[in-house]
């Protein structure tokens, strides 16, 4: 059994190296298909991070009058906290707001200079309200709009829902395009593998006829071609691992610039999930290639 298996592997490598150019083309097509699939994964991770980033930023600011009394503010905070749509309410006093503002613009001397010239704290105290989730956002805004309090100076209701909708829409479109591209590559890969096996069988038709003549089993005749398709897959997946990590290293600085302040590290993600990502890709690609090879072998090995 082991001997037969060893010979199958040997014949399989012989097939690959005797048709080296065809084998290389097959592996390159496989790499392209896997690259598209991995790009799809990158888009998915980036999309999730973008949506997460916007989710983090979703809050509603109620600007209060500067002369609002402490007990009035605390009473308002308590009332708002009671709303079922509210997850958290934070009160930012005038002093805290000024401190935050100064910290945020510490690099900008013009702004800080203008602030010094004013000689007073122009900022108003703020009530920062976080909704439970995005679905209650509209409802909460309606309630806050209807809420009448003398200490409310103004309201800032940025429409995050539209922004998230746009991000989700872009991510979905990119994913759809990627899926279509992946499907095309998977189909091309199947065709190329099918043809590689067909050509390999054509090249070895004399050998196959002799094998049949002397009593080789169908299993022994067909297995090398199936093993070849697994070897193509293995080379393809190893190659994509070698190619994709440097590619991620190139991409990472741009993502970090874009998502400043957010933890997005594709290299860590791909390292952490390497076994799942590339293992599953290997299994899926091997399965597809075995099916393509099996069809070709069944059809053409009757010499």
């Amino acid at each position: 059994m082991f001997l037969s298996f060893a010979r199958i592997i040997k014949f399989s490598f012989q097939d690959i190296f005797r048709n080296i150019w065809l084998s290389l083309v097959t592996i390159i097509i496989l790499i392209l298909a896997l690259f598209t699939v991995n790009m799809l994964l990158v888009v998915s991770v980036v999309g999730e991070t973008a949506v997460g980033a916007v989710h983090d930023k979703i809050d509603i600011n109620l600007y209060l009058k500067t002369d609002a009394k402490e007990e009035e503010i605390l009473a308002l905070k308590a009332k708002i906290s009671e709303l079922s749509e509210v997850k958290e309410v934070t009160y930012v006093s005038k002093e805290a707001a000024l401190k935050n503002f100064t910290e945020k613009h510490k690099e900008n001397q013009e702004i800080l200079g203008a602030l010094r010239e004013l000689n007073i704290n122009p900022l108003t105290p703020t009530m920062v309200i976080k909704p439970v989730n995005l679905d209650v956002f509209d409802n909460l805004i309606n309630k806050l709009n209807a809420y009448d309090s003398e200490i409310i100076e103004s309201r800032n209701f940025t429409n995050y829902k539209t922004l998230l909708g746009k991000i989700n829409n872009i991510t979905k479109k990119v994913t759809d395009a990627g899926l279509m591209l992946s499907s095309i590559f998977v189909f091309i890969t199947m065709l190329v593998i099918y043809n590689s096996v067909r050509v390999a069988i054509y090249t070895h038709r004399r050998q196959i006829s002799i094998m049949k003549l002397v009593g080789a089993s169908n299993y022994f005749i067909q297995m090398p071609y199936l093993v070849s398709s697994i070897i193509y897959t293995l080379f393809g997946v190893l190659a994509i691992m070698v190619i994709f990590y440097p590619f991620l290293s190139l991409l990472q600085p741009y993502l970090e610039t874009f998502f400043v302040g957010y933890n997005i590290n594709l290299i860590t993600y791909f390292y952490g999930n390497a076994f799942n990502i590339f293992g599953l890709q290997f299994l899926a690609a091997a399965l597809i290639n075995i099916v393509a090879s099996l069809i070709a072998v069944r059809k053409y090995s009757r010499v």
Partner: protein
Amino acid sequence: MIRFYNVTKTYHKSGKALNKINLHIKPGEFVSIVGQSGTGKTTLVKTMIGEEGIDEGKIVVGGWDITNIRQREIPVLRRQIGVIFQDFKLLSKKTLFENVAFAMQVCGGSSGKIKKIVPHVMKIVGLERKVNDYPQEVSGGEQQRAAIARALVHRPKILLADEPTGNLDSLNANEIIELLLRINKFGTTVILVTHNREIVNNLKRRVLTIDNGTIISDQAVGKYIL
């Protein structure tokens, strides 16, 4: 050893290739099957090795009813029947030794067994000094000897020779027939398909004559009658 009971085989395009063939070849016999081209000789050989199915009748080889043989059983049958052809069917990129060893390799023979058996059969066919030569470096007769050696590695009970001398000059042809007779002496049943009148007449063995898919003559010590 081989029995055909009312075997009929029809091809869609060319009609009946075998028509109610009844045949009994006993173990250890040397039988020549003769006939013009296209009379059904090769079809007869193909049905014996399971390469072609039949439409009617029954075929038994070595006590095994192969009439409805399954695909996965064919390799087992092929290991019991050695076959040689007019075009030798050797692999040009392998030496004669490797060609013969290949038959054992693809059937799972161990390296030790290959090293023991291959030199032995190469000696039987008289090629012990040509083991490292490639097919294109030796004569047609020697190529056919290598093909015979390959057919013998599984120690078959039957050796089927389909026009083995068709590509050879008379000297080489006679040597191949001598070799087949020697193999027959060891107890192997030999079936020779040929249309070489001289060879058949010199053999003085059983001759089956086929015409239009029918056995028209079966002589114990026969002559080429067509």
